């Protein structure tokens, strides 16, 4: 998740009392990895149900022209550091039943306290 979160580790505040269908694009969410049920991972939410997303704009994991519609009750999740991330580009849309929480703020180190807000800007 570079550059949002550092490799050395930090303490974040996670809200686990969420309703997955109230999430919005740009949220940082935690979910159990579909590849390994023992791992909790954190990625950025890119697509909500019904959205059309480009699987991989760089064309490394899928042709850059390939687009999919995110199915009902699923979301599209991508790591910020795309080169070192296994995410929806690998395993496709993720069921909302796997989502555990949403990151609210970074609380440690104190000098880098941040409230995570959506970094999405929409183009008309």
């Amino acid at each position, binding site marked *: 998740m570079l550059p949002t979160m550092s490799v050395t580790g930090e303490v974040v505040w996670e809200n686990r009392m969420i309703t997955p269908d109230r999430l919005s694009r740009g949220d940082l969410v935690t979910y159990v990895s579909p590849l390994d049920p023992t791992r909790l991972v954190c990625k950025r939410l890119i697509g909500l149900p019904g959205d059309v997303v480009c699987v991989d704009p760089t064309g490394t994991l899928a042709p850059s022209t390939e687009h999919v519609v995110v199915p009902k009750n699923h979301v599209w999740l991508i790591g910020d550091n795309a080169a070192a991330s296994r995410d929806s580009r690998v395993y496709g849309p993720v*069921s909302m*039943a796997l989502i555990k929480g949403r990151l609210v703020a970074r609380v440690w180190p104190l000098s880098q306290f941040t409230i995570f807000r959506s970094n999405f800007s929409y183009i008309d």
Partner: protein
Amino acid sequence: MVSTLVWLPTGVIFVQYFYTLKSVKGRSMQPTLNPDSSPWRDIVVFNRFAIRVLRQYERGDVVALQSPADSKLVVKRVVALEGDTVKTLPPYPDAEVRIPPGHAWVEGDESFHTEDSNTFGPVPLALIESKLSFIVWPLQRWGPLHKHFAPDPAAPRNHAWRAEKAAMEREQWRNSRITVADK
């Protein structure tokens, strides 16, 4: 009052991580659960320890999982695990599917009244939350689910004999559709 406060966390931990009682609704697991002959909903014990702590996923287990399509808890049977190849049933678009890592193929026993992997595809193992260990109610089917064997051909061919034979044939048909991955 104090003893309630002491035992409440123990009870919560027990139900969350060990065993829990649930009643099964709907006909997707007929005739294993809720057969038409039964006027009640089945009440069964689910084992969470084997799934949440031991992570034992086995083909043929009846499991409770959250449906990826609507996040509701459903009861299905694990047919195939990662690496296996399954011959799918309609309405699945492909004739055969190879189960990706960390996923399982789940199906209801009554293939006409079930929404299972044939509609939503392989499910992540993380959605499986417990496996059925035994039936509590109704009392005539009390006990764990057993493996089916060919009934004795010399035995009287009554209702129980035919039910056993049908169950075994269903199990064979289900197993004939999967190619188990090499270890």
